[in-house]
């Protein structure tokens, strides 16, 4: 934690810069007297799923929102595809922890909302929305309202909405935290398939070490407030294997254990 240049980051930096779609440069963030983030430098590779992991309140959400352009950084830069950005842009889409669905709109309208804001004509919008509704397994629910869906289904709507604007980078803030354990596990497996299929860049925040190790290509561990990068870990797990094989893979278990040993000191 006291080590700002993380152990495994070195063998990574060389390749990362080559195809980094998102670059985080010296990001600091203060909320009044609270220093939430200090000097964050990170690169996120195209087509990979990177997870931010860390104790509660370490600034994971803050960092994700800064990247999304929803919260301004106190200092530092965010570059997307090499260009400095200061606000939200079409190449990034956010998936919210509380789903952020409009309760007055149907699933179809919710999924097509990003397109609606862009002025895409209705027919086109509905075609695209329906496609992604099918993709996340919600066909037949187009005319339902969010309150008629379970937590897991609502989050799928949120993900379909993010897909439908065809952004390159998807930012997901604890997307499964409001979903119950067993559905969550199912969802993780589905997510891996989506990652495989859609070939997008994912930035993922979670509290669950197993989840992080199970789904991520790379895990960024943040230290407690003020959040700094304390370690970067690449699980290097063979994702082509069946879920139960992955979950009993030695490498997988080692990484989980390693991360847990790093984090348990911050648990109460």
């Amino acid at each position: 934690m006291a080590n700002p240049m993380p152990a495994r980051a070195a063998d990574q930096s060389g390749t990362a810069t080559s195809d980094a779609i998102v670059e985080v440069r010296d990001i600091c963030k203060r909320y009044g007297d609270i220093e939430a983030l200090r000097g964050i430098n990170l690169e996120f590779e195209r087509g990979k799923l990177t997870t931010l992991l860390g104790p509660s309140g370490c600034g994971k959400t803050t960092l994700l929102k800064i990247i999304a352009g929803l919260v301004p950084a106190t200092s530092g830069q965010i570059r997307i595809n090499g260009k400095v950005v200061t606000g939200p842009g079409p190449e990034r889409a956010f998936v919210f922890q509380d789903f952020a669905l409009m309760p007055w709109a149907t699933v179809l309208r919710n999924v097509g909302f990003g397109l609606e804001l862009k002025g895409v004509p209705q027919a086109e919008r509905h075609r695209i929305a329906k496609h992604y509704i099918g993709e996340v397994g919600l066909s037949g629910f187009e005319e339902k309202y969010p309150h008629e869906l379970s937590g897991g289904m609502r989050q799928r709507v949120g993900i379909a909405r993010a897909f439908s604007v065809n952004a390159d980078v998807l930012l997901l803030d604890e997307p499964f935290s409001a979903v119950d354990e067993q559905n969550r596990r199912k969802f993780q497996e589905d997510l891996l398939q989506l990652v495989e299929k859609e070939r997008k860049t994912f930035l993922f925040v979670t509290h669950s070490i197993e989840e992080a190790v199970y789904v991520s290509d790379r895990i960024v561990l943040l230290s407690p407030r003020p959040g700094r990068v304390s370690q970067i870990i690449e699980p290097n797990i063979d994702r082509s294997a069946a879920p139960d094989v992955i979950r009993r893979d030695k490498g997988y278990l080692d990484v989980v254990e390693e991360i847990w040993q790093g984090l348990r000191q911050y648990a109460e």
Partner: protein
Amino acid sequence: MHMAATPHKVSATGGAGSGSSTIVETLAEFARRRKSFWVVVSLATLFTAWEIAGRVPISFAFPTFLETLAALIEMALDGTLLPAYAITFQPLVIGVAVSAVLGIGLGIAMGLSDKAEWLLAPVFIVLQAAPMAALVPLVTFVYGIGLVAKTLAVIMLALPVIVLNSYKAVRHVNPSLVDMCRSFQGTRLQQISKIIIPDATPVLFAGLRLGIAAGFIGVMLAELLITPTGIGDLITYHRSIANYAHMYAAVASIIAVSTITLAALQYIEVRFLRPEKRRK
């Protein structure tokens, strides 16, 4: 309206009670299922108490329930009640409409802009907490005694309520919905029209309902304090000639009308504005 329909339901279901169970059980069963049963019970209790108190009598100026009912029917039939309501509703409707447009506008502005909030919120907070009734007579000095003055009295009471509720509605819009809109590069205008206003609508509407309730208070104050017209005139006139049953009938009718109006609005609100509450 639905109140009037209830007695039918009672007799219909009560009569159709299965033969084996006692009347008490049938009633108890019915009470569990129908809220309207209790409406009838509590109305009947009050009316009986009123009738008895009137018969005692507790005072020459206290008519019985039946006398009052007769007076109400008489006024309804001889064509004094409807025109009176037409007159009372004029300042009420205009006042509430003005308050709604102005109040929702101001409230949204206050919700969206810190400067507007700083400038206006305290004023309306004070006005809402203050006993505006004291100021109603002042209106006559400036706006005289006509429709304008009464409309103004309605606005004085309804506007602060509507403004503050609209303001609250906008301030309590789900922030992650706003973030969601921003993350899809929605413009400020889209944010307001597609997220903030729809999300605030239920609270806006609730505020409107409170505003209408305040408006009813305002119009009654105006008709009792500025000049007696409409229902206020029925109350004062019948009091001045000692037609107390008519006076009570007018008072009871305005309370009933306001209650029914508000209940109808609430019904509309749940029925049409809340998809998430609709199918319950």
